[in-house]
């Protein structure tokens, strides 16, 4: 067991975990943040996508020792106080979430995309989300959601 400090959604915390425990499992089991999902366990589906020090990562591929001192953002940190993030609003209104299992990861990938590129083209949206699989929507309404969020200022900086 190692005691590992990290900041999750703006809150400093520390977890006691075996150093090779997956960040995904630490989030879900130790911190009770079950938004990130395991779809494949090998970094293919993106359901476990979170942001670590501003980078988009598959949390199933990150051993917790690698997150030592890191700043982590998960879907649970996306809404600001009681207000939905523009991306969350857009996913709701445009039909970007169907079964919802890919949605947390998709939202994190989309957040990451809009932060670096506030007004992406359709091709840039496709590329930005290509690491996140959705089996329900055929992606069309997800592209619409990201474009709509961009139009309403989806690049709002995470702030808490």
């Amino acid at each position, binding site marked *: 067991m190692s005691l590992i400090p990290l900041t999750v959604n703006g809150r400093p915390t520390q977890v006691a975990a075996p150093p090779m425990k997956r960040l995904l499992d630490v989030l879900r089991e130790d911190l009770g943040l079950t938004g990130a999902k395991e779809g494949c366990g090998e970094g293919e589906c993106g359901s476990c996508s979170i942001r670590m020090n501003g980078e988009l990562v598959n949390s199933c591929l990150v051993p917790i020792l690698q997150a030592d001192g890191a700043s982590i953002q998960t879907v649970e940190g996306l*809404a600001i106080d009681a207000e939905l993030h523009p991306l969350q609003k857009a996913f709701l209104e445009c039909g970007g979430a169907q079964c919802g299992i890919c949605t947390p990861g998709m939202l994190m990938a989309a957040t990451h995309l809009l932060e670096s590129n506030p007004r992406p083209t359709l091709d840039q949206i496709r590329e930005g989300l290509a690491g996140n699989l959705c089996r329900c929507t055929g992606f069309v*309404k997800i592209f619409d959601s990201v474009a709509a969020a961009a139009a309403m200022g989806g690049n709002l900086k995470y702030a808490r």
Partner: protein
Amino acid sequence: MLTPNPQDFLETMSDSPTHRPQTRIVGTPQIRKEGVDKVLGRAKYIDDLPGEGAHEGMWHGATVRSAIPRGRIRAIHFNPRIPWSEFVIVSATDIPGENHIAMIGADQPCLVSEQVNHCDEPILLLAHPDKRRLPEAVAAIRIEYDPLPAVLSIEASETLQEIVWGNDNIFKQFHLEKGNVDEVWASAAHIVEGEYSTGAQEHLYIENNGMIAEYSEETGITVWGSLQCPYYVHKSLMSVFALPADQVRVIQVETGGAFGGKEDYPSIIASHAGLLAMKAKRPIKIVYDRTEDLAATTKRHPSRTRHRTAVDGNGKLLAMEIDIALDGGAYATLSSTVLSRATLHATGPYVCPNVRISSKAWATSTVPCGAFRGFGAPQSIFAIERHMDKIALALSITPDEIRRRNFLHTGDTTATEQRMNEPIILDTLLERALKESDYHAKRKLFAGQNSRSPVKRGLGLAAFYHGAGFTGSGERYLNSLAGIDVPANNKVRVLVANTEFGQGTHTILCQIAAESLNLSYDDVEVAPCDTNVVPNSGPTVASRTSMVVGRLIERSGHQLVSMLRERASLPETYSAPEFFAACDRYRNRQGKVESLCRYEAPPNIYWDDKQYRGEAYPTFAWAVYVAEVAFDSVTYSAEVTNLYAVQEVGRVLNPTLAAGQIEGGVAQAIGYALYEKVLLNNGHMVNNQMTNYIMPTAADVPPIHVFFEEIPFAYGAYGAKGIGELPHDGPAPAILNAIQDATGHSFTAIPLLPEDIFLRFLAPTPNEEPVAQ
């Protein structure tokens, strides 16, 4: 009031082929009921439920599976390095009731006791408090077998050299005759033959199968799970645990995709979790990882379809002889009904006076095939829609023209002699698809460019119908009960066993209830999907929920308003507070406010199971799709560059959700055609990882252009027909038709991967057809 009057619809329909009746909530893009929880990441799926609180003391379960496709178990060895006393171990001898999963039949064991009939078949179950200890324990159990010869294809099963099921390896067969096929061949201007095959397909719901079970002597068994059909699981658990109905409780939790893959399999995993819970005397969670889910759970039935068709000089179909073979895997599961739907969609949406269809579902030594969006229809529609292009080529007419000359119209009869009494607008759908895709102009343009470019472009068509609801007498047998109640908290609740797994069941049913009660969408919610709470409104399958169950909710709403007017002084026009005040008065007197309705078949629907004749479906959804492809002659890869989906699905209840169903189904069908290949080695899926089983990504899906024509169906909720499965039927043949248009090569099997195309280019078949123009 409870019986719809078709005249109401027909009169308004007469001035235009499609129209939209006046409604307040139905037909509008209401926000998904559970949407906020989903975008906040707080929706709880089965693996999100912790081993505390409701499931205090929970352990984790795992499954020990067969490593060979067929053989008898000789011995089971437990490696002594593992501290087995820490584990709970369940075998077939621990089953208190029947060792079978009760589906249509009861041939599939819950756990193998003696003979293994497919790879990855469950033999033992293990439980331990720490889930990380389970993989090592599973690997430490060695099973010795006396192997038996395995049957690994339809062709091997047909030889009957090994009998792996029943007396003849046949789960089910149908034979259908209309007119007299044999009299036609001699006089036909053309006879066109073809053979077409389709591969297995994995549902690839992003959430794997999972279940939590608890057992107590007093209350029996309770399971929480990711599932489509709570009452299927309920029936199966009653049998495995030898418990009466009131000692079995099934609760659906948020379900991360299903597509048919959580129709029959959850009965197995629920039984397994329950057996471990009974023996361990504590809650048990079993959640598969991706490799286990891919290797062990059901797939779409592989198929082989042969067509022999007689056509006159003008391209009119004179006779169709169709032979269908499905690979059902090792157990019967749902193969009989999948085969039935394949058979009933085999002629396509065409009229033909003489038809003979023989179809069989064969047993093999592979993982059982099960339900998957389309349920047999995508297989037989792939065959007929490829074959129609072959006929067009033989007659030197265009793909659209061969279809136009043979479309079903109102008054025509199908292969089962079902007279089509509803309006059929296939011609309208075809013209719209041609116009939206700019079909003729683009084909001409591409034909001119292709000879000079390494990228060959083309367009392909598919026309098809999908029968809505259960086949034949199915809905009568189901006898579904659904309704609404109004608890004291001033919310209307929809009472159904139909599940939300992304399609929008909850949203649609709340829209229908709100519409029928003249309330707002926010006044309505869905009751927990718990067999202790909701009646059996049937399974969430067969594109039946909006149309059939939605209709029960519509009727229940009207019935409740009448009840409140008669017995609780609800005014003729009322506000929401007046409605809920009337509910309070009614509840004070009657104890509860509840309105339930039972299924009533539309009039003039009659199906003869024995003769396999009559009204196969109460109504059909209709579609014409156009695929535009680009084939790269350097990499041999084909990609879809545009897909135009024009359909008539009755009334569209929620335009956002409806388009979402079409887009998602099209993307899944593009995967079926061009990407998704289940690779078996001695009956075991060897590409059982998302890295190696490839589905379309955000970078792969083309623009999908969705168009609806609306003709309300008089007996569906507010005019709805089924929609969910339709979009999986047409893209695959449209894409392969487009590839033929682009390359001149006729491909007859899917999935069609670049390596398959490469092999064909390497060694063209002797009777290769000329380039289609």
